[in-house]
């Protein structure tokens, strides 16, 4: 067990076969559903990135290269579990079939934005899909996941929590506080470090990534640490299932390092060519998670190029339809929720300040 944080758990080998003791033996149906969620994430990301370039929204962040993580974990966990995600977990929502139109409306901050025009694009919140409210502060929800899990245990419930933090953000106190609480109270939570190796322009070495692995941090807290090939849908699934079983049987928390690579820019606001080789992603030895899962199911004989192209074409038009519907309501600045929404939900009931200020604005 103490070796696990220093190795790399993989199921899909370089030839696309599922091998070794961690093989979760998933059905063909599940594998195709996983591939679909990942491809949908990519199609959506590409489309929205282009819409940003056209000035239809203010900001966007892609998950490119990390799609296996959210998709596999979303599918491996139960509907009532709660994820405390990072902003590169769109595939969690895609795997749970969150309505694309609601994503588009949120990104456009238009009249139908489920977050009522209050949040930066992509900082979603989707309670019914087990997706806790995102925010631009990184790391500050890691401890809340532990508290949520403690509450579930307190209520003798079987629900568990899963939280994500980036490799760079492990340098924040939030990471260490959460691990301490998870360990001390044996909370039913899965704590994940998504090591995509880049924190905007700084590589993971600035968070201590050259001195040891992120999974190894678990050992000092008396928790198991698993280091997983995060571009391997099957390995992510297997590790998540293992940690979920441990949590649900009251054996406590697990720290999982998901070793992956941020293939695209941090956001629409930076140019990776300024801080890393432009072709670095092409040389990433663990490959593209989409191509790896595609290769695997092709070898299994349940998939081929025709099906793949047809799926991509279908998803593309699904995304286009959702974008069209969102555009019909309005892109950023062309449509917005009632300004009344600015003053709502600050408190459960607005106090006199908010009522007066709303009047001052003439609404």
């Amino acid at each position, binding site marked *: 067990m103490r070796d696990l944080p220093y190795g790399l758990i993989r199921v899909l080998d370089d030839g696309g076969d599922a091998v070794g003791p961690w093989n979760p033996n998933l059905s063909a149906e599940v594998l195709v559903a996983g591939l679909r969620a990942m491809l949908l994430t990519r199609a959506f990301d590409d489309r929205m990135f282009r819409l940003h370039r056209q000035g239809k929204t203010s900001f966007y962040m892609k998950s490119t290269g990390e799609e296996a993580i959210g998709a596999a974990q979303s599918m491996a966990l139960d509907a009532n579990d709660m994820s405390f995600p990072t902003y590169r977990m769109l595939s969690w929502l895609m795997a749970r079939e969150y309505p694309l139109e609601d994503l588009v409306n949120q990104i456009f901050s238009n009249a139908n934005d489920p977050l009522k025009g209050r949040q930066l694009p992509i900082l979603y919140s989707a309670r019914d899909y087990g997706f806790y409210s995102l925010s631009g502060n990184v790391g*500050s929800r890691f*401890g*809340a996941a*532990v508290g949520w899990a403690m*509450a579930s245990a*307190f209520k003798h419930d079987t629900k568990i929590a899963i939280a994500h933090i980036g490799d760079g953000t492990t340098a924040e106190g939030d990471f260490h506080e959460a691990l301490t609480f998870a360990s001390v109270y044996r909370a039913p939570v899965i704590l994940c470090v998504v090591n995509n190796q880049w924190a905007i322009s700084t590589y993971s070495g600035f968070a201590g990534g050259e001195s040891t692995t992120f999974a190894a941090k678990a050992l000092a807290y008396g928790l198991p640490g698993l280091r997983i090939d995060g571009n391997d849908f099957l390995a992510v699934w297997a590790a998540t299932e293992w940690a979920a079983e441990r949590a649900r049987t009251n054996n406590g928390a697990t720290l999982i390092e998901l070793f992956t690579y941020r293939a695209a820019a941090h956001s629409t606001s930076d140019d990776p060519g300024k801080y890393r080789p432009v072709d670095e992603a092409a040389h990433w030895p663990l490959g593209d998670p989409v191509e790896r899962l595609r290769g695997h199911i092709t070898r299994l004989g349940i998939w081929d190029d025709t099906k793949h192209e047809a799926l991509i074409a279908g998803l593309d038009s699904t995304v286009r339809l959702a974008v069209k519907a969102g555009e019909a309501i309005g892109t950023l600045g062309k449509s917005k929720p009632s300004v009344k929404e600015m003053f709502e939900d600050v408190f459960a009931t607005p106090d006199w300040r908010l009522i007066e200020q709303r009047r001052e604005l003439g609404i």
Partner: protein
Amino acid sequence: MTQMNMIQALNSALDVLLTDDPDTLTFGQDVGYFGGVFRVTEGLQKKHGVTRCFDTPISEGGIVAAAIGMAAYGLRPIVEIQFADYILPAYDQLVSEAARLRYRSGGQFWAPMTVRAPYGGGIFGGQTHSQSPEAIFAHITGLKTVIPSNPYDAKGLLIAAVEDDDPVIFLEPKRIYNGPFDGRQNQSLRTWANEATAEVPEGRFTVPLGKAAVVREGREATVLAYGTMVHVAAAGINDSGVNAELIDLRSIVPLDIDTIIASVRKTGRCVILHEASRFGGFGGELSALVQERCFHHLRAPIERVAGWDTPYPHAFEWDYFPGPTRLADALRRAMEA
């Protein structure tokens, strides 16, 4: 009715809450087995069990983060930060998470939680056990900030804070835990015994948030205060000979603006008293509100009596502490203006 000091009243509030509502729980440093360094949670673990009242690591950020997650799940956590001076590691959690959760999630998630913290000086605690940080919470929209001044209010306000669906910072004036203190440090210690506000019902009751108390009525000036300073203000008013109205704000967010306006419009003068440093303190907000809403009724400039703009000093505690003499001087200045 039972005679209670403020510690007993707070303990009674927690006991009532833990008894009535299975979704409440309380935790913090030394809160469980030991019962808290000020004894507010004494006996609660023994009576309600280790899952309802428990100890935590020395990790204010972790304590508040866990409480937010529990509250988002549907519980009503009540956490203790051992001294308000130590709440700053949790400030990010309170500001960036608890205060904004309902807003940013479009009403999908919210955090009904209460953070108790003993605050204020007058106990020779030096600069790390004496501060009054209320202004840094009042400035954060989405948080409520409550400060009781006596045992009755302490119990009623704490129950109201826990029942509230928003995050509440509950600051307990530790100098008056065991008895009222009017700022005359050379006099013998008083206890809460025989004080009317120490007659506290044993059962459940609330004092609503956002409702100030007119502690004494007056015609010539209005004094706005909260916490320990309510008692200091009463003494200062007596010393001054001014017929002043004393208002105990009880919560600064939500603020009972109507009671403040009605009083200042009646008296025409306003003196604000708080223990926190003056510059950028909550008195600045009160002063601005009174000026904006009562300008044509004012007969004198608004006065602010507050801690000096220094860290809280150990040897100079009574030079720093805004006592009754300074309040009385301010009232006289207001009368002479």
